[in-house]
């Protein structure tokens, strides 16, 4: 049926597009392949459960050993029954994503082959049937392939495949193995729908779908209440953002009469530049982005999301899903270009988030929490870039971040895995994620150590590593925009936009400094110094199996050489310059130029060198500071926490934001609902007073009436007689 639809679609559109008839026609297979994997793995997880009775044990490498006896029992059972199914999942899960990657690569080659004709042809759009036909509103299941979605697809399927492979090792002994791969496949499917969807509603399908998978995977070990809470929190906070997205779609439909990208891009010219309408649309869209990409004030779900398995954190909460907001803004460039005010707010929010999250990262002990806050912070950078109109810089950082952050998370996963195995041997209940239980792991896990250092240098912005180039491009773009752009000419609260942009640049530099410090701190505590895991555990610490280190190595290569995707012009000696900028130009160049106020400002080489110098100096300074500051022996757990007062404690507790939201938003809402709305209004007023009150009134009248019914015939006779007299009297003396 799909093929028939496909043919119909192909016949319907003129074959003018250079991609028509090429392998790009199979773009629909990209999301369907992981969906197939979801169906197979879903059946694998649910059918044996149905036949074999309840799955009764929790195996959670990140939550200590509460259920040791069960676990042993499980492992005995697993050899006989679950393994067979697990083997199938191990093949199907990564394979479908791998095939999708191969297909994506083939399509990419086709796009390369199409050459310059593609740049003018616009997006390759295919429609596969109608979704919501309602009056003039016609929403179709349409996919759109262009340079931006192609890049995202490659990242998602590529990094996705690596993380699927890593998961084979990491989740090896989990009883929910098939279920895990089912969710992960489903996530890839929705993520591809998100980036390939040809209209805002179709994007929204992926948008909420990835939220669903995130919810399911954060709460994967749902028997622990805090995990289930974290999943729920993620979904609900995301919903707050989705509310904004929905309103933005309503605004678009009500004012432009279309919801697909092509239509919006064309109709955007009708909007008044810098008008209230387009600003509102962009701000509501940005609310959605802030939810999905964990920006202020909706970042609160992401640190909690670390409750999920670590590969999930790598794939969903670092490399792909959380960057969807950046993708959305780049995708909506035509709108944001008309709303410099909204763009300025995006950049400002991004900068503030980056700094805010980075400071929290300084004080975390949980290795995954450090990475989580670091992710929030790096996402802030991307929004800074998107805000100043440097969409390709944002996407560049998105790509390099996907590489180095996935590597960091997987590396952390492999550390956690090692500690978990060690504690498992000695049956000790210790936190396998607490850096105070680590230290000196370099000797036990040299591969992980080396690769994670590469990623750390990348995120800190040390030259040659990928993160250096992308971060430098962002800072350069902000500096350029501050010098001359449409945003710079605005005023916000009386402050000129260019001043704010200079401020954002400084914030970016400070954040880079802090980033270098906390990442180095994390590396020092984890891999260097004396080992604090425990005497009994030390012999059991060892490197993860090859199925886990293999993907790490691949990501390591990308982390180191990812910068070559988009070398700056001043470093053209290193290789071909600005590959990514040129690749994305057909999609984003016009919007970037509009926001820049005509032409993207080109900084002189001297300025560029100065900027690069500043960035490098800052990162080296940060690493150096951390090495000096955190070299000493670590304080014991309790002492360290007791020593915290004032600002230190506040930072450790993430500025008490969660507690404040709980106390001033969640609890009052529940109390209001329970005491005022339910008990007061519903049960009390409407049901009690009005409904039961009217019944009581009737009962009262009836009671009064019943008093007359004495049951004594004599009384009735008297009443009749008196009544008769009254009637006669009334007639007689009228």
């Amino acid at each position, binding site marked *: 049926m799909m093929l028939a639809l496909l043919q119909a679609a192909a016949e319907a559109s003129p074959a003018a597009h250079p991609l028509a008839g090429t392998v790009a026609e199979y773009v629909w297979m990209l999301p369907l392949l992981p969906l197939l994997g979801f169906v197979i793995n879903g059946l694998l997880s649910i059918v044996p459960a149905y036949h074999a009775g309840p799955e009764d044990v929790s195996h959670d490498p990140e939550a200590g050993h509460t259920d040791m006896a069960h676990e042993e029992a499980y492992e005995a059972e697993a050899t006989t029954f679950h393994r067979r199914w697990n083997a199938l999942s191990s093949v199907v899960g990564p394979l479908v994503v791998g095939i999708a990657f191969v297909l994506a690569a083939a399509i990419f080659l086709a796009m390369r082959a199409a050459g310059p004709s593609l740049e003018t042809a616009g997006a390759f759009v295919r429609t596969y049937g109608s979704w919501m036909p309602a009056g003039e509103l016609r929403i179709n299941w349409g996919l759109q392939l262009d340079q931006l979605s192609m890049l995202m697809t490659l990242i998602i399927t590529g990094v996705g495949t690596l993380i699927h492979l890593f998961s084979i090792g990491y989740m090896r002994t989990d009883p929910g193995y098939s279920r895990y791969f089912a969710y992960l496949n489903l996530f890839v499917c929705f993520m591809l729908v998100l980036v390939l969807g040809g209209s805002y509603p179709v994007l929204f399908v992926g948008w909420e779908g990835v939220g669903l998978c995130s919810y399911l995977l954060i709460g994967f070990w749902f028997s622990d209440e805090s995990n289930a809470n974290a999943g729920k929190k993620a979904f609900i906070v995301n919903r707050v953002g989705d509310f904004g997205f929905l309103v933005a779609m309503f605004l678009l439909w009500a004012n432009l009469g279309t919801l697909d990208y092509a239509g919006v891009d064309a109709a955007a010219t009708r909007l008044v530049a810098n008008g209230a309408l387009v600003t509102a649309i962009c701000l509501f869209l940005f609310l959605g982005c802030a939810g999905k990409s964990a920006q202020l004030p909706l970042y609160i779900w992401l640190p909690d999301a670390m409750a999920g398995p670590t590969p999930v954190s790598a794939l969903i909460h670092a490399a792909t899903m959380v960057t969807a907001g950046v993708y959305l803004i780049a995708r909506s460039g035509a709108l944001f270009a008309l709303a410099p005010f909204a763009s300025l707010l995006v950049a400002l929010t991004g900068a503030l988030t980056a700094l805010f999250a980075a400071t929290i990262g300084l004080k975390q002990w949980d290795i995954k929490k450090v990475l989580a806050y670091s992710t929030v912070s790096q996402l802030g950078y991307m929004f800074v870039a998107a805000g100043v109109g440097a969409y390709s810089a944002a996407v560049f950082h998105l790509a390099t971040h996907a590489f180095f952050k996935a590597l960091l998370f997987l590396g952390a996963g492999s550390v956690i895995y090692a500690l978990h195995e060690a504690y498992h041997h000695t049956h000790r209940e210790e936190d396998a994620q607490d850096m105070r239980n680590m230290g000196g792991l370099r000797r036990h896990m040299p591969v992980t150590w080396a690769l994670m250092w590469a990623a750390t240098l990348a995120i800190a912005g040390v030259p040659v590593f990928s993160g250096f180039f992308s971060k430098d491009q962002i800072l350069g773009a902000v500096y350029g925009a501050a010098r001359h752009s449409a945003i710079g000419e605005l005023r916000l609260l009386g402050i000129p936009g260019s001043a704010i942009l200079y401020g954002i640049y400084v914030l970016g530099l400070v954040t880079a400094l802090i980033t270098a410090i906390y990442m180095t701190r994390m590396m020092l505590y984890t891999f260097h110094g004396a080992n604090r895991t425990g005497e009994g555990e030390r012999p059991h610490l060892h490197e993860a199996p090859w199925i886990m280190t293999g993907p790490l190595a691949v990501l390591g290569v990308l982390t180191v050489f990812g910068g070559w995707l988009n070398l700056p012009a001043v470093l053209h000696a290193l290789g071909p310059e600005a590959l990514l900028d040129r690749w994305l130009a057909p999609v984003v160049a016009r919007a970037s130029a509009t926001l820049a106020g005509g032409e993207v400002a080109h900084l002189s080489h001297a300025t560029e060198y100065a900027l690069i110098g500043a960035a490098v100096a800052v990162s080296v300074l940060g690493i150096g500071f951390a090495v000096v500051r955190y070299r000493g022996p670590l304080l014991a757990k309790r002492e360290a926490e007791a020593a915290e007062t004032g600002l230190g404690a506040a930072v450790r507790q993430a500025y008490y934001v969660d507690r404040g939201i709980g106390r001033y938003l969640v609890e009052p809402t529940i109390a209001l609902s329970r005491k005022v709305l339910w008990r007061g209004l519903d049960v009390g007023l409407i049901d009690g007073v009005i409904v039961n009150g009217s019944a009581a009134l009737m009962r009262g009248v009836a009671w009064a*009436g*019943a*008093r*007359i*019914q*004495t*049951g*004594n*015939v*004599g009384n009735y*006779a*008297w009443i009749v*007689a008196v009544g008769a007299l009254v009637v006669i009297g009334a007639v007689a003396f009228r």
Partner: protein
Amino acid sequence: MIAEALFFSAILFTIGVVGVLTRRNALIIFMCVELMLNAVNLSFVALSKMHGAALGQVFVVFVMTVAAAEAAVGLAIVIAVYRHFGTVELQNINLLRG
């Protein structure tokens, strides 16, 4: 002539009403009701005579038939009441009290 007949009928009727209102024994009340019926019968006959129309007398036959039926049913109820309560004093019987 007609005046006397109607006067007599009114006296009879009033005696019946007063009896129904004041007496407590079901049988006596019952007899008072009969008295009221017959008072009405009397005025029917008298008025029929005065108007020279037979319709009044036809009604008398009707009323007597109904009264007979009523007597049968009523006495049966009184007997049933007596069997159940052991008395026919009506102030003691108030099953329908609301």
